[in-house]
């Protein structure tokens, strides 16, 4: 493929075919850089930045020529390399006494490469252990007589992620557009409902506008508004207006009859958890 391309002169050293196959396999820019450092047998603490940058860019170009998706990270790293290169070309400022003390422009990159290399090695060590299902095997648990289970002694074995997955499943199947997962600043409608209900229950009533005073962002306004609608729909609160064009009040449902059992129940519910 490279040979057919007139641009192949771009490459200072011809790429071995085996390498081409592996192009896709780079995990990211750090992986590619480590490969280049190893291939050129250069000191990671003293990277010849111009040469490595040139080779890096060649590989990125090659990826494009091969119609591989060049992820944004590769391009960001390209920009970083070019920036380091240009900083290293700057002559030291003679007026600056501490110029010699200034950090090597390559320093952060080197730290990242070392750190990355460290975890890559750790990954290799991990996978060389005796892996369950590959090197060692356990028996399947063949549960004896399940009928003897006593439900109240069950230990529930469930992960948070499974709960999220379950909800995703429901949403996929559920009738369309029933609700959206609207949220703002990390607050979902469900949470906002609980907050609003809380406020209303604690104070008995609250001015509609008051809910919106501190809520600066538009998404939060929307979430708050939808929460109020939802609470009305559920008849957990009532909306009242004392006079035409007067303030709109949110009133805890049942509040008019005075505090009763119903309110207590709902109050408990409002402060979920």
């Amino acid at each position, binding site marked *: 493929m490279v040979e057919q391309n007139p641009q192949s002169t771009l490459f200072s050293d011809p790429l071995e075919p085996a390498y081409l196959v592996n192009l896709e396999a780079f995990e990211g820019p750090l992986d590619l850089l480590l490969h280049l450092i190893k291939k050129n047998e250069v000191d990671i603490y003293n990277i010849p930045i111009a040469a490595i940058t040139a080779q890096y860019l060649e590989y990125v170009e090659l990826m494009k020529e091969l119609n591989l998706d060049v992820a*944004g990270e590769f391009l960001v790293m390209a920009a970083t390399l070019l920036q380091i290169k240009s900083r290293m070309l700057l002559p030291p400022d003679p007026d600056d006494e501490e110029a010699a003390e200034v950090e090597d422009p390559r320093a952060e990159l080197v730290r990242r490469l070392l750190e990355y290399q460290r975890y890559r090695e750790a990954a290799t060590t991990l996978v060389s252990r005796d892996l369950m299902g590959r090197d060692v095997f356990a028996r399947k648990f063949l549960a004896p007589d399940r009928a003897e289970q006593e439900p109240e002694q069950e230990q529930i074995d469930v992960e948070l992620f499974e709960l999220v997955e379950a909800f995703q499943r429901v949403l996929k199947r559920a009738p369309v557009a029933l609700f959206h997962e609207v949220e703002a600043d990390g607050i979902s409608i469900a949470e906002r409902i609980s907050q609003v209900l809380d406020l209303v229950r604690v104070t008995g009533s609250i001015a509609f506008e008051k809910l919106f005073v501190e809520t600066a962002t538009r998404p939060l306004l929307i979430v708050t508004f939808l929460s109020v609608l939802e609470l009305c729909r559920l008849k957990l609160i009532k909306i009242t207006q004392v006079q035409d064009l007067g303030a709109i009040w949110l009133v805890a449902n049942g509040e008019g009859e005075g505090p009763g059992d119903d309110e207590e*129940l709902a109050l408990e519910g409002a402060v979920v958890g």
Partner: protein
Amino acid sequence: MSGKSLKNIVESLLFVYDQPLTLDRLAGLLEEFERSDIREALNQLVAKYQEADGGIVLVQVAGGYQLRSRPENADYIRRLTKGKGVKFSQSALETLAIVAYRQPVTRSEVEYLRGVDSGGVLKSLLEKRLLKILGKKDVPGKPLIYGTSREFLELFDLKDISALPTLKEIEELVPPDPFADQPQLPLEPDAAESESIDN
């Protein structure tokens, strides 16, 4: 390979497999070994387990060999099922998820979302104390309104309900398509104009 190794291999196979292994099957699996050696290894293992008199026994059953737990210990083993982490059924998990994310919620709303009757599941989640009744909705029929309980938070190790991961956070884990509209970045001044390859 020594007889001891073959004995070990056969023992490993018997351990992992949950059904009886016949000599034929073993000979088929262990092609590089003599059938007679495999038989000998089995005999050695039978003797070993008899002598050990431990919690695992080697029985000849259904024309094959099988490792089993000692029958005398069956009572204790049955206790394992009891406390075995019981996986939620799909319907219980879904119902719990709907209540968690949509609370305060009524049974009919849960059923609308799930598309199936959910009364039994709600009841069982109430019994497990993972849900609680928040009140009654002020509409004809006064349906119960459900929410999650303190036990629910404990089960999932959540500080409060706001610590529940939002769907958005999970969906964001999968990038939509990072390459969809990548802006072209001029990589090197001299290479930029000659190269314009769409990727």
